[in-house]
């Protein structure tokens, strides 16, 4: 009877054909939304002497951002300090294939071209002369961006792995919902059961060893064909498991990971022009500058999203000419060279809000009649969305035009808006 059952089980097995081709599918999942714009200024504003802050935290900026600002040194009903900035790195192919180890590394790597930002700006009217306008062209590059926090990187990586683990659960559900796969799998298990039974039967008068071996060989051959068919189905069904955009939670963890610590250092510079009534004959260089910001966190980053940081500035300016009041006299100082040194204490709260105080001292190195001056300034900024920074500042302006010391308050209100910086991470999948 047992032999008959075994034969019956063999007959119900379907004929199957299979292929042994390797099936690989490479898909991209788009859409890690980087949150890069943290700065409340623009290199062009610094060149035009209308910046909300003189000292910035070195970092990377998005593909494009625009700065719109109003300042009390030329208040108008509409903001008239405008600047744009581009980071050309994001235009290239390499920006679509970033590396954990190079771009989001736990070591501080030296960069120049990856973080190079080019900016242009204009302002209409300055306090001393409302018919005067300024234009500027600037650049800024973060040489050292700091390190990615290992704890946060591990958290992000665990999230990636949990998504990876979900693939097999998705695959199991998809296979179980396919009737053909279930049918073939059941048949394959029947064969295995039959083989298990045959393997314990001792040859006797009714069934010889040769017969048993022949039956088992036949069942194994049939099994192999079914197994190939199952493989083919498994590949086809697995390929249909959909990919999706990165989730907001992944974005949040990624951007949290990208809040860096360690030493940060940048280099910036450019030139600004003055023009009166947009007349070419009345257009000339206002000043040329070259500067560097550097510093880092005073508190540990992985304790949360709040941190205290300190940054320093060293800056050189060449002024083509300035009119300088000393006593009752106005004198023109040609080719003035100055050096600025400054420091800034900055408190970030909950990754959204930031308060900072800075002081900068400017001294003449060209041995002219220019007397040292300074700027003390407070800045508040609020990040109201990804790459959206609202800011205000309050402080005195440098007095580059008299030896009476700082006299004018400068108050700014502005917004920086960044665009177009999504990157791809390959292989993040959820059904």
């Amino acid at each position, binding site marked *: 009877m047992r032999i008959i059952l075994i034969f019956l089980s063999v007959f119900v097995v379907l004929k199957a054909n299979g292929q042994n081709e390797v099936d690989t599918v490479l898909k991209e999942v788009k859409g890690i939304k980087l949150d890069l714009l943290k700065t409340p200024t623009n290199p062009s504003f610094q060149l035009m002497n209308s910046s909300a802050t003189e000292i910035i935290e070195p970092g990377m900026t998005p593909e494009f951002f625009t700065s719109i600002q109003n300042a009390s040194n030329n208040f108008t009903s509409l903001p008239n300090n405008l600047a744009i900035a581009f980071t050309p790195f994001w235009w290239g192919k390499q920006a679509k294939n970033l590396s954990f180890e190079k771009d989001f590394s736990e070591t501080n790597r030296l960069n120049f071209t990856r973080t190079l930002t080019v900016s242009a700006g204009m302002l209409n009217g300055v306090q001393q002369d409302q018919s005067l306008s300024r234009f500027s062209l600037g650049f800024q590059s973060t040489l050292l961006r700091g390190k990615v926090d290992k704890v946060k990187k591990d958290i992000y990586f665990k999230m990636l792995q949990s998504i990876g683990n979900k693939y097999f659960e998705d695959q199991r559900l998809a296979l179980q919902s396919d009737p053909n796969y279930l049918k073939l799998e059941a048949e394959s298990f029947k064969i295995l059961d039959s083989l298990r039974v045959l393997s314990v039967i001792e040859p006797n008068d009714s069934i010889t060893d040769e017969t048993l071996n022949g039956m088992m060989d036949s069942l194994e051959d049939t099994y192999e064909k079914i197994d190939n068919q199952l493989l083919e189905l498994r590949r086809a069904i*697995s390929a249909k*498991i959909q990919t999706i955009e990165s989730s907001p939670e992944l974005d949040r963890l990624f951007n949290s990971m990208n809040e860096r610590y360690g030493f940060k250092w940048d280099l910036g510079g450019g030139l600004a022009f003055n023009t009166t009534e947009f007349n070419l004959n009345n257009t000339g260089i206002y000043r040329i500058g070259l500067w560097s910001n550097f510093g880092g966190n005073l508190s540990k980053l992985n304790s949360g999203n709040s941190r205290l940081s300190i940054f320093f500035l060293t800056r050189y300016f060449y002024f083509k000419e300035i009119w300088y009041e000393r006593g009752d006299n106005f004198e023109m100082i040609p080719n003035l060279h100055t050096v600025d040194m400054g420091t800034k204490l900055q408190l970030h709260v909950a990754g959204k809000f930031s308060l900072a105080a800075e002081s900068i001292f400017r001294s003449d190195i060209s041995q002219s009649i220019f007397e040292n001056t300074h700027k003390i300034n407070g800045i508040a900024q609020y990040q109201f969305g990804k790459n959206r920074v609202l800011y205000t500042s309050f402080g005195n302006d440098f007095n580059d035009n008299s030896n009476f010391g700082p006299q004018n308050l400068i108050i700014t209100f502005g917004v920086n808006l960044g665009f177009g910086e999504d990157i791809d991470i390959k292989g993040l999948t959820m059904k």
Partner: protein
Amino acid sequence: MAKFSDSAQLKTTSRTSIFIDLFSGYGQPSTTSIHLKNAQGQEEELMNFDGNVENVEIGTVRKLKYNKIEIRTTIHDVHDNPIEKVDISLNIRVYDEDANVAETNFSMKTIGMGTIIYSDFHVTIF
């Protein structure tokens, strides 16, 4: 993302144990779990591990013979080159003490920043 599926039969003549060697590349973090699946569709996780293993016993022949084992591996590509493609590979070898072997190999060119490779290798022990 890369998905890789394969299956094979291991015809064992041994009466002792079944072993596995798994190599998932240099420095690429990987996780592997091995499941035993019976005719009722029930699964039992036999073991799981991170990274590469060599000569690790999956189970006894007595337990595994005429059953299917499913070896599921996830590999994350975190290599250090944002532009150049590199080879990522997976080699799995299931064998007994008499050197009967079922094995699979997978390799592809990939770019870093989170490419994930999912591999399922089903081995039936005869």
